């Protein structure tokens, strides 16, 4: 049901999104004019994907919430496809098993759409975790089978289970006195995670000296990380109108998103480096770089989700 009040909330949110995107696009466009380079190109690419995300988000808010679930499903699909393609650990014999991994996507998102919490929690970590190795056993190629058994479920966790938490935010029951609902939480976590990446990058460029983990991600510095963290916490504080958070909780949420986003970022960086995709400087053409888009989100979304869940939905 749309009351005038909630319509205004949606309109407000849409205005915020478009405002921020226009600001970011202009900023990066100017940055590129002043000092071109691959890293700024990366930021410009990022804003492009934000526009797409925002478009989907707004359409879903105005037309039908189901659209978001389908869109996130496709995001998981593309990420899983990319990960299975660049992975040197999955064998060519695993094709048919990887097919089953793809089938898990519509199931997981349908569960999220229906808001079935327990099935949502166990479908991938318990059921698929068993089903995939079982299928591998039935196929009977024992050479390197243990590797496939661990790799394929991990891929599912990283690309499907994680991202589906963003969708599930939309299925959370309404909290008393908080009209913005799951949409606000979704916007909050996606926006803060993305901004945290940009803040870290910008602070790193400005002040960065001490490398955190040079072997994995040479551009990550302590200065960038701390600067990003403080900026994200500040943003989390000011954007708390999207959430039911009190001021203190919002600060904690910002801290959580900044740290988990950073961890997701370097985990995916390490995976890519292992597959030889980092040393070449630019990602290999044809590998769409979707993992680069979702790296920090893959970790920050489940962490943020359970943060909200434990604080507001457990009695």
């Amino acid at each position, binding site marked *: 049901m749309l009351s005038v009040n909630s319509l205004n909330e949606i309109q407000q949110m849409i205005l915020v999104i478009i405002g921020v995107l226009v600001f970011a696009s202009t900023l990066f466009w100017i940055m590129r004019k002043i000092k071109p380079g691959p890293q700024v190109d990366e930021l410009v690419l990022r804003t492009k994907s934000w526009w797409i995300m925002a478009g989907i988000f707004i359409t879903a808010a105005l037309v039908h919430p189901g659209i978001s679930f389908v869109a996130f499903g496709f995001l998981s699909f593309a990420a899983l*496809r990319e990960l299975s*393609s660049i992975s040197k650990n999955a064998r060519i014999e695993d094709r048919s098993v990887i097919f089953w991994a793809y089938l898990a996507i519509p199931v997981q998102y349908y569960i999220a759409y229906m808001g079935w919490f327990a099935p949502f929690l166990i479908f991938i970590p318990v059921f698929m975790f068993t089903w995939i190795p079982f299928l591998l056993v039935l196929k009977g190629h024992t050479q390197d089978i243990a590797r496939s058994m661990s790799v394929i479920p991990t891929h599912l966790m990283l690309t499907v289970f994680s991202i589906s938490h963003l969708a599930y935010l939309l299925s959370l029951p309404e909290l008393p006195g908080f009209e913005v609902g799951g949409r606000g939480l979704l916007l909050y976590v996606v926006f803060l995670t993305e901004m945290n990446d940009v803040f870290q990058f910008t602070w790193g460029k400005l002040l960065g000296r001490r490398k955190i983990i040079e072997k994995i991600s040479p551009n990550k510095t302590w200065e960038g990380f701390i600067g990003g963290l403080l900026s994200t916490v500040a943003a989390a504080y000011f954007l708390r109108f999207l959430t039911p958070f009190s001021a203190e909780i919002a600060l904690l949420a910002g801290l959580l998103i900044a740290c988990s986003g950073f961890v997701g970022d370097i985990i995916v960086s390490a995976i890519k480096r292992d597959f030889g995709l980092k040393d070449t400087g630019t990602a290999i053409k044809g590998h769409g770089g979707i993992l680069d888009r979702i790296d920090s989100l893959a970790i920050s979304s489940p962490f943020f989700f359970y943060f909200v869940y434990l604080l507001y939905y457990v009695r």
Partner: protein
Amino acid sequence: MKHLLLILIYKLLMPLFLKIIGVKVSSKKPLPTLTPYIIVANHNSHLDTMALLSQIPTKDLLRTHPVAAATYFGRNNWLSILSNIFVNTLLIKRREEGGTSDALELISQYLEKRHSLIIFPEGSRGEPEKMQAFRKGIGVLLQKHPHIPYVPVYIQGTGKILPKGERLLVPYDAEVRIGEAIHAQSKEIDAILIEVQDAILALKDYK
């Protein structure tokens, strides 16, 4: 009628389908229109033909033919009719299957009618993601028609999505890289073969 069908398949449905299963097509330049050329590509999967046809300009769909083995796509009447209607194939007999130089004669006739061709000189899809030696035919054709350019294409990854002998289609990232139309420089058949192969492999390395 057939033209409409081909447009529907290769201009509307195929791009969407290819995008979902992960085939990405990139070309340095759009393919020339209304002039004959021979697309020469390495071959791993039936998807290769589908992806290439989806890149043919709409006007040219009806006059572009993938050259295919009669023993495979013509093994019964139904299959040969279907592959004619839906894929617009030109079926020929391989030499070892009782074909004669008539096959090349037939292909030449199409070129003279200003039709374009898609040829996979490896002759068959082979093992997934492994390039085999080229057959002579493409060299003979390019030698005989020096005014007709060839378009080198490098395809990678389709052999994982749908390898030879498999029915299950599994999405993976794959890439079809289309080069620019060029004329063969050499005059000898073997030299032309090497030239074409090098042109295809050169696409593998460009970024």
